[in-house]
């Protein structure tokens, strides 16, 4: 689908729970299949930003657009036909089966009184198959490992064929292998055209999986911080990491036989105050 509008964009967005804004002057724009990673220290407002992007919070100023339409003006049912969300909290009801959990992701697209039928079942099976976890379909959620649960939640988000996928720290709390599995699946979805935003605490993952990034840099005391936006290699520099996280870090290249990856290693807390 070619449109004049970017798939997802934020224009001069500002948000705060109290009087002071948590962040302001936040802008970005994403095309089809692009991946944006959101980085920043704990409490900087990453999850808050995701909720703003989905229209769940009202920004102080600025506007979020999905295909050019203001998310706050859209009907939620219509908005969430295009937007899917994988929350950070993976505490899901443990007694439902994997299949039931994935089917619930389609509820909003079914009639109020309808039950999932063959069409929904087929879609769920296809999604599970594409993610390589069809064999889990009949298992109860309580039998799954953390990595498997996250894959099921990804399936629950992707089952409605969204245009936009929003993930809150999709790889946190998972082991190396599962981190790779989950993030590769996210990248596969993006390759099929799903525009993706994910929060992460791993700058390496931004290097490896994202096209562009947002970096939250906290301001003085309670004042609003600065949010940097740009392509990853320009955004994630030793200087910016110091500014955002207050640590001295070294960014290096690591080569293996078939792949070269960036590595970001924090060395020590930075002592000097704000040298700009």
């Amino acid at each position: 689908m070619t449109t004049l509008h970017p798939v997802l964009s934020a224009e001069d967005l500002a948000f705060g729970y109290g009087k002071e804004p948590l962040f302001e002057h936040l802008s970005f724009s994403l095309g089809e299949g692009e991946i944006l990673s959101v980085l920043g220290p704990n409490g900087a407002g990453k999850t808050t930003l995701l909720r703003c992007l989905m229209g769940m919070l009202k920004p102080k100023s600025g506007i979020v657009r999905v295909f050019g339409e203001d998310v706050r003006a859209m009907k939620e049912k219509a908005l969430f036909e295009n937007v899917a969300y994988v929350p950070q909290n993976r505490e899901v009801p443990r007694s439902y089966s994997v299949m039931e959990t994935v089917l619930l992701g389609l509820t909003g697209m079914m009639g109020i009184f309808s039950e999932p039928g063959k069409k929904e079942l087929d879609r769920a099976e296809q999604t599970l198959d594409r993610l390589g976890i069809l064999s889990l379909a009949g298992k109860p959620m309580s039998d799954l490992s953390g990595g498997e649960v996250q894959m099921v939640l990804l399936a629950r988000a992707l089952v409605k064929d969204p245009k936009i996928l929003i993930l809150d720290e999709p790889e946190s709390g998972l082991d190396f292998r599962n981190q790779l599995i989950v993030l590769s699946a996210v990248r596969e979805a993006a390759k099929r055209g799903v525009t993706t935003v994910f929060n992460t605490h791993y700058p390496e993952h931004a290097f490896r999986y994202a096209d562009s990034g947002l970096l939250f840099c906290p301001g003085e005391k309670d004042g609003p911080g600065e949010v940097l936006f740009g392509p990853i290699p320009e955004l994630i520099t030793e200087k910016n990491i110091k500014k955002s996280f207050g640590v001295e870090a070294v960014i290096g290249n690591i080569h293996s036989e078939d792949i070269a990856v960036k590595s970001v290693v924090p060395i020590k807390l930075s002592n000097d105050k704000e040298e700009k």
Partner: protein
Amino acid sequence: MSNKSVGKLHIWQLLLLILFPVLTAVVCLSIGRMNVPVGDVFSILWNGMLGKQENTTAAAAILSARLPRVLTALAVGAGLSAAGAAFQSLFANPLATPDTVGVASGSSFGAALGILLGLGSIGTQGFSFLAGIGAVVLTWALGSGKNRKLSSVVLAGIMVGSLFSALVSLVKFTADSENELPAITYFLMGTFGSSSFKKLAVGIFPILAGLVTLFLLRWRMNLLPYSEDEVRSFGVNLKKLRIVTLIAATLMTSASVAMCGQVGWIGLITPHMCRMAFGNNHRSLIPASALTGAGFMVIVDTLARSLTKTEIPVSVLTAVIGAPFFLYLMRKKGGWSL
């Protein structure tokens, strides 16, 4: 995909679930001070439906005394059990009951006040029903709000519930100890003894409305234990779903208490039995709870009216049967989750 992994009942499970209350009702109609053979029960019912009055004492006992009572027990059992399942899921709490939101205490207060004021059976029933709804409205108004968690509704409900319990005590305290006090006490312990077609005709509608609503929403109710943002991202309004569920469960509970007083336990045990047997998907949980609860209630009431010469209060029996049974299931299954 097997039925179980998508939460559907097998056809034979559904058949058994439907047969249970139907057969129980017929058998229980035959039991009483005067036992009537089951075959005769069928013919009496059949003739009754055709409008042919049999002038036998058996026909009189069954059609005018036992039938309204059994039908009321069926309705109340189905209503309280489905409501119990709904309250458990709504608050994601295995111990949630109608009193979590104050509805049972509110209805009890209404009934007690109705008896004290001498409103008559239908007047008392109406008063009780409205007081139950009033209690829930109060709970919701006090406990819900922007950025409030559902647990604050539960806290408000407990407060409202204890307030109404205190008011019940106050009513009892002021009641005349010759007639009103025993009437209030006896009613509140739960009894189907005062069932009549007239009372049932009034009380059946809120129960049916609640049952139909929950049955239609059975798939969507599976979203109740999820977090608000999650459900919102599916394009579903969780708040609306919660309110509709709460209204349906409240209607059924207060209509039940208004007809037969407080019948504890059934709303707690039946849904848990069904969760263990059929899983937590509301597609099967709601119909299974309603049907099992209906049959179970009829059995308990039949025991209540025929075990001894004087009637045993229903809530005493449900507790005596229910608590050990519940503990047995819990220990055997090693607990459960919602």
